[in-house]
């Protein structure tokens, strides 16, 4: 064949193929949901405990208790209820009848006890919340419907933390154990759950593509949803602009829940999509290393607290899609004092406190650093607003781009912890312990959550006592008291409690937001025609 003939023939083939009947571009089918939120890095629910994993876990796995509604309520799920004995050291759960794994095997208390044992043995993700209070053999199954937990010490947040632990099909996972790895290699790309959706493992591509099929035999049944979604296609889209365009075009049924405020109006104006705005429990904080001068000086911290333009940030940058949070517990969670005075931008006060700090010998003239998370624009914007305020009172703030893994590694020691850094504390479990408990009790020093290196014996004592009490009202009083002390000490800068903004298609119905999983519970959803 001559070159010219080949080229002409090739061109003809391409043209013919392009001119052929054009099907619609990737529009979702009438009974399938395209969910464009992030997938977890692994499918093993005991290996990671982050927001994408929550969105996966609540659909594919079941837990003893779950969080429903907003503000969230902890409700029995696999368990019918629980009892507490031995002054809080023994917690017993009774399981429902009829729960089955995806392979048809019944879910028993042995699976529950073994799941906790595995989670504690591999010591990853959710394990950290339980390791101080529960030994791997601390969960037992005296009969098929009873699970007993023997705690090492009284730990009131235990029940609230149980939704962190997915119950696995022991038989299935144990059949795939290699080199005593507790099935980690296998479960990273497989599933062993009982949840309302079954992942299609054949087509799974990590962090890129996962299809879920409805589990018709789920123990909760489907009577509350007359038109459940048969297929959910999880298709994360990395770039915000593409995600929003895809939603407006009708390619996908949702964005992630961190829609930039400047995109809200654009989505709302479209005919195909709207925005669900739900107050979450995601606290944005600028941390201060209280062990490093000049942050070891209260007056300096007060000066910094008064140099941040809270209103400008919330109204300007976030277009009002956030709620000012004056202290270390989300304002919509019990334990947060409702009358807590919030720091406001007041440069005169900032100057006064700065002068006092200087008089006390604090090195206020040194350049201070704030580390931001490079790929999260809001952390940069917050740092720039603080930089602007501090410059007006004569403090030089340098902004250092960084990444999450490096930042949390650096918080292991006070000398390596940055002067300041920006992050959010999300709702991993719904209890003040998740925020104030782990952020300001000095026993957690060395973890990223406690990276202020704050130590106050009174606060330590209040938080310790709150953990050991069962009565919520008593715990609430202690958390409120601790909050007031921490805010008076200006330990950190607490900016806002987030409003999650998720673009959703207008055909999607039954979207019920809960902070755990950010509303990604497909069990309740259906698609309008």
């Amino acid at each position, binding site marked *: 064949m001559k070159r010219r003939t080949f080229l002409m023939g090739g061109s003809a*083939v*391409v043209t*013919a*193929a*392009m*001119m*052929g009947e*054009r*099907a619609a*571009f*990737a*529009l979702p089918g009438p009974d399938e949901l395209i969910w464009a939120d992030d997938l977890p*890095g*692994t499918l*093993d629910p005991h*290996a990671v*405990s982050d927001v994408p994993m929550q969105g996966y876990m609540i659909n594919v796995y079941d837990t003893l208790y779950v969080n429903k509604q907003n503000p969230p309520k902890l409700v029995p799920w696999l368990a019918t209820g629980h009892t507490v004995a031995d002054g809080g050291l023994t917690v017993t759960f009774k399981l429902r009848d009829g729960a089955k794994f995806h392979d048809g095997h019944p879910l028993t208390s042995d699976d529950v006890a073994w799941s906790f044992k595995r989670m504690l043995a591999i*010591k*990853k*993700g*959710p394990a*950290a*919340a339980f*390791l*101080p209070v529960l030994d791997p053999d601390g969960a037992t199954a005296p009969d098929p419907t009873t699970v007993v937990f023997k705690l090492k010490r009284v730990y009131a947040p235990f029940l609230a933390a149980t939704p962190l632990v997915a119950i696995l099909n022991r038989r299935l996972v144990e059949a795939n154990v290699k080199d005593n790895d507790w099935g980690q*290699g296998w479960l*990273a*790309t497989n599933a062993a759950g009982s949840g309302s959706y079954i992942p299609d493992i054949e087509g799974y*591509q*990590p*962090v*890129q593509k996962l299809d879920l099929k409805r589990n018709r035999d789920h123990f909760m049944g489907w009577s509350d949803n007359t038109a459940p979604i048969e297929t959910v*296609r999880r*298709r994360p*889209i*990395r770039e915000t*602009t*593409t995600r929003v*365009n*895809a939603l407006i*075009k009708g*390619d996908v049924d949702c964005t992630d829940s961190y829609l930039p405020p400047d995109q809200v109006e654009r989505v709302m104006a479209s005919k195909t999509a709207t925005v669900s705005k739900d107050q979450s429990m995601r606290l944005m904080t600028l941390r201060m290393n209280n062990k490093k001068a000049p942050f070891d000086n209260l007056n300096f911290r007060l000066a910094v607290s008064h140099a941040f333009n809270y209103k400008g940030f919330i109204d300007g940058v976030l277009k009002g899609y956030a709620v000012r949070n004056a202290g270390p517990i989300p304002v919509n969670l019990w334990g947060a004092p409702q009358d807590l005075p919030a720091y406001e931008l007041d440069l005169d006060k900032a100057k006064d406190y700065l002068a006092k700090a200087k008089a006390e010998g604090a090195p206020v003239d040194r350049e201070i650093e704030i580390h931001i998370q490079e*790929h999260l624009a809001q952390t940069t914007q917050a740092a720039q607003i603080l930089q602007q305020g501090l410059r007006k009172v004569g403090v030089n703030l340098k902004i250092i781009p960084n*990444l*999450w*893994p*490096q930042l*949390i*590694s650096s*918080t*292991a020691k006070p000398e*390596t912890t940055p002067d300041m850094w920006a992050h959010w504390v999300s709702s*991993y479990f719904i209890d003040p312990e998740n925020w104030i408990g*782990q952020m300001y009790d000095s026993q*957690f*020093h*060395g*973890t*990223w*959550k406690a990276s202020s290196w704050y130590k106050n014996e009174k606060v330590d004592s209040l938080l310790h006592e709150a953990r050991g009490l069962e009565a919520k009202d008593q715990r609430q009083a202690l958390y409120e008291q601790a909050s007031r002390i921490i805010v008076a000490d200006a330990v950190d800068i607490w900016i806002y409690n987030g409003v999650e903004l998720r673009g959703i298609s207008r055909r999607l119905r039954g979207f019920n937001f809960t902070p755990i999983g950010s509303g990604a519970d497909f069990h309740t959803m259906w698609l309008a025609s």
Partner: protein
Amino acid sequence: MARFVLHRLVLTIPALFGLLVLTFIMLRVVPNDPSAALAGENATPEQIAEVRRAYGFDQPLWKQFVIYVGQVGTGNLGNSIISNRPVLRDIADRLPATMELTFVSLLFATVVGIPIGAIAAVWYQSLFDHAVRVLTVAGLAIASFWFAIILQMIFAMELDWLPLRGRFPEGLAPPYHLTGLYFVDSLLTLRFDLFGRAAEYILMPAFTLSLAGLASIARFTRAGVLETLQKEFVHYAEAAGYRRLRIIWVYVLRNSVVGATTQIGLLFGGLISSAVAVEAIFDWPGVGSYAVNAILSSDYKAVLAITLVVGLIYALVNIMVDVVHAWLDPRVAEKL
């Protein structure tokens, strides 16, 4: 020629080893310890230290490197510390998409860039030449992510001529997997309809990615043709009465594109790195988005593996360019 290719292939081994050393040092010398992320949200320093021990991050850096090189020597690039999957498998799943995008972009840049550059040189100082010069400068200056978004807004959102994102229609089975390159697989299986669908999806990302390369090749070709047109053999051919078109397309062009060909080899590396942004915007399921995830999560084994694989491909493409170079210029072939 065979000896030359073999020689170049052997030289690739120390080059890749150097790349591995450099990347390993860059990744591990900076404070970059994924143990805290792996240990979980509420992990204590003791639990983090245990994870560090379990993964060998507490070992001296040289020891970690020796262990890693030993693994690589056996063809095992390790498991991702995040997904626990073999990184080679993850890369193999995604590499064909990136390769297809890169090669189509390169093809586009070459097929369009060389004629444009040649015509601009032949019509030196004409309106066309001025337009090519302006547009090629613009092509080099325009940020690919901006251009990508503009293309999306026009052709996907407004006109609805092309798909917004992805590599293939949702719900339609891609061509039978032979190479992972949809164009090649659809032709090999005689599925011309799927070839067309794949073409619709690759048009915008490939054009975006090719823009800088196209501009560069056009400029190199223009300069090469202008220089060759002054050569004596051209005047001789004109005096001998050869047709102008034949002189330019057969004799001048062949002598002018040697520089542009070298440029194509160099461009390949640039295209692969630019593919990261283009893949993100067009939601193209390639190695670029995998690399970004790996970097953000400090998954250093994945980052090392990507660097190594891309380095190897880059080396192979450059060997191919040398071979083409020799084919175009027999004097080069004689020296090989």
